[in-house]
């Protein structure tokens, strides 16, 4: 109980710091919008409207948004040794991971919702199975934060941090991104069975990584 309360406190602190930048979420959304714009401009409109390609772009953009948001969150913590202040609290080490995952997941759900609607409208995509699409996107979004946060924590205090994180994170994210892309594309084009089985895989990913994170992250922080 107390552990959950502490996780909630860390998440609330994170969200508050995030909200102080009134345009934090706006920023991430604009980022996705710019990426969608950019890619369709360089790739060409026909290709960009393909259900596979559109989903791939969306998930790549979301992966980057996650990495950026996570790094920003830890950058803030490293200034003035705030992270150390948190870790020095009794139970601080254990609450860190859960709190960050929770906060980041909430931010990303918002970003994905707005960014997804934007992509649908901008690319004028037909949606065959809206409910399946929502389920897939939600599970895909929940699968992203744990692994990115684990990587950021591992890379913390290493010098090449900003560049190291994508390297550590992206290969591990590849399976999830492929699953999310296939699932999204299945939901867009009406393949209900495909969408649900990818969603199941995504759910498994997020459970596995969350458990791993809760177990090993406390040990990885000094």
């Amino acid at each position, binding site marked *: 109980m107390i552990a959950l309360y*502490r996780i909630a*406190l860390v998440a609330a602190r994170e969200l508050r*710091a995030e909200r102080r930048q009134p345009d934090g979420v706006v920023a991430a959304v604009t980022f996705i919008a710019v990426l969608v714009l950019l890619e369709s401009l360089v790739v060409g409109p026909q290709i960009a409207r393909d259900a596979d390609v559109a989903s791939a772009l969306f998930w790549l953009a979301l992966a980057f948004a996650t990495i950026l948001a996570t790094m920003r969150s830890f950058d803030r913590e490293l200034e*003035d*040794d705030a992270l150390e202040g948190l870790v*020095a609290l009794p139970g601080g080490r254990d609450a860190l991971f859960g709190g960050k995952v929770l906060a980041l997941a909430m931010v990303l759900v918002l970003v994905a919702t707005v960014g997804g609607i934007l992509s649908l409208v901008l690319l004028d995509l037909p949606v065959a199975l809206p409910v399946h699409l929502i389920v897939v996107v939600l599970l895909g979004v929940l699968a992203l934060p744990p692994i990115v946060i684990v990587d950021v924590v591992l890379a913390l205090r290493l010098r090449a941090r900003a560049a190291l994180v994508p390297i550590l994170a992206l290969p591990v994210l590849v399976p999830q991104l492929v699953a999310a892309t296939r699932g999204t594309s299945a939901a867009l084009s009406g393949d209900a069975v495909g969408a649900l089985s990818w969603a199941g895989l995504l759910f498994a990913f997020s459970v596995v990584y969350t458990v791993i994170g809760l177990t090993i992250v406390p040990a990885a922080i000094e």
Partner: protein
Amino acid sequence: MRTVQSGASLHDATVVLDDRVILRAVNVVVGPGLTLVRGPNGSGKTTLLRALAGLVPLARGDRRLAGDVLYIGHRPMLLRGLSARENLEFFARFRGGDTRAIDGALRAWGVGEDMDRPVERLSAGERRRASLARVEAERVQVLLLDEPFADLDEAGAVRLRQTIARARDDGRSVVVATHAHPELDDLAKAWIALDDGDATAA
């Protein structure tokens, strides 16, 4: 090995950073009252405090702790973006305590007017004061303060001495690493002299 009623201790603790031995088989027992950590620059004071707080992995030896620890390092450890009040509220809630003492503590430390501004917009001394207000707001048994006088003006230093004296009188364990401030010696019960990683207790 002995048991410690309230306080912190390191037994035969060796700390290695960067393949260099920073603390060498240190035995330190901190009990109620004021313990002063003295030693020239680079002698390992910060590392000792961080080891007591469990922030640094021990290559050998072990650490015992009775009661919660409040560690305040060279930097104020407040999260940017949040105000001083929000930072302190977070810490107090996290410890499961209440937040009633916070406003009073911040006001007593002279940052009453600035307590709702983001901490990165405060001056160095104001930030230090806000972080020291945690001592009153969290009321924890073991206090580890690393160079807490830095950036404080005369009034702030007086207040800090009073705070330390009061914490000592309350039976809390207070460990302060600081240069100069010989007047603290009158309050102290124990001294740890560090020299290049070797600790001698007095």
